[in-house]
């Protein structure tokens, strides 16, 4: 029951979805679409599971009064405030309006906190890009040097300065202008590399899927092979 049934479920669901590509007959025709919606629904139950787990972890920290328990209280409080505001559509004119419409508390909290926090975390990347450039991008090997050269051409090529720097090149050497060079880099070697990676990944995905459907891969079930 604990291992065999899950393996059987995985096998049936996976195999019928693969068949669905070739078999237009019902029920296969709409299987992909229905299973997608089912998965979305399950993922939403998972939000409840996740939220429950989050509360459990942080409430335990609060009640134990360990180090930094006050911050856990911040997490619990902000979780509950956002949850209540959203589930009860606080501030909305009626129940049949959008839960994140204008004037709702949910949207106001979102605008004041969620949106700037997200954008700022995102923009931290510019700083980390700078420190990584200094620390990590070193021409240790021939490979690393290639990466650096390609990156530098793009970095300079995508600014007004790069244009000015190489605009003097005469017509027969036009292809060496940095804008042209960076275009070529993107549309030729970059393309080849992307393709090799994509085909490799596709085979990796196909192989993993097959192992799951055939029940060979089962470590996600805690399954040590019998």
């Amino acid at each position, binding site marked *: 029951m604990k291992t065999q049934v899950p393996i059987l479920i995985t096998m049936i669901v996976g195999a019928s979805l693969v068949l669905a590509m070739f078999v237009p007959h019902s029920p296969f025709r709409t299987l992909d679409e229905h299973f997608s919606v089912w998965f979305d629904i399950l993922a939403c139950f998972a939000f409840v599971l996740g939220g429950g787990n989050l509360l459990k972890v942080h409430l335990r920290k609060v009640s134990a009064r360990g180090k930094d328990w006050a911050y856990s209280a911040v997490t619990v409080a902000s979780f509950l405030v956002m949850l209540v505001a959203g589930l009860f559509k606080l501030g909305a004119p009626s129940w049949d309006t959008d839960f994140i419409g204008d004037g709702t508390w949910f949207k106001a909290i979102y605008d004041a906190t969620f949106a700037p926090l997200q954008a700022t975390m995102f923009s931290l990347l510019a700083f980390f890009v700078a420190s990584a450039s200094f620390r990590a991008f070193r021409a240790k090997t021939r490979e690393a040097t*290639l990466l650096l050269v390609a990156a530098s051409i793009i970095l300079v090529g995508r600014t007004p300065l790069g244009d000015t720097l190489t605009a003097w090149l005469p017509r027969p050497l036009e292809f060496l202008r940095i804008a042209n060079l960076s275009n070529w880099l993107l549309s030729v070697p970059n393309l080849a590399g992307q393709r090799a990676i994509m085909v490799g990944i596709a085979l990796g995905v196909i192989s993993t899927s097959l192992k799951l459907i055939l029940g060979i891969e089962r470590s996600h079930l805690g399954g040590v092979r019998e």
Partner: protein
Amino acid sequence: MSGAMSGATLADSMILWVGALLTLAIFSFLYRDNPFYKFAEHLFVGMSAAYWMVTGIWSTIVPNLFGRLYPPSLRAILPAVAEGTPNLWYAVPLVLGLLLLARLVDRIAWLSRWAMAFVIGFAAGTNFTRYLQSDFVGQIKSTIVPLVVLGTGAAGTADGGGGASGLDLGATISNIVIVVGTLTGLVYFFFSKEHTGATGKAARVGIWVLMVTFGAAFGYTVMARVSLLIGRFAFLGQWLGGMF
């Protein structure tokens, strides 16, 4: 930038202030970990978990589960859906969802594996077909190009070299690089052959191609990240401009 505050309501300026202070709290992490960052981090975690939960409930569970299982239940919330006919198949995801929640109770936690098995099967089935079609077969097809290009001004190359007649040198070189690059890149990924001898040489060329790819991605990504930082600074400028 300035003047944006004129005519702003109290609520708007509060939103701006809270946003600006939280922006600074996150930036302070760059100096080192500190109570402001810790506060912002814990706030972010709690709020965003609830945000996704609420969004999931209103945009998926309500219309796609209850709305299909028993539409009349939604008369007050989604009148447009309430007239539909019940679809009992949606009892299956309901049951699977409840099985998933069994994880919260230790004694029956193993039942959640059944729901997980569905998810894994779904992943295996859909990804198998999707990757086979667009990434495996699709990419093979796109790589089939002639190694020799005749005529002038052939589209697809940026360097536009070549002469007035006969061979288009630029396009020819580009196509050779694409084919050789793709093939040697694939050789790099061989697992059952050590990278020695001819395989080793091909794999070597393959890794060079991969490195150029990574370099290009690096350059472009740097550009995008800097633009976002400029956007954030402009936001702080708007806040500062509003203060004076």
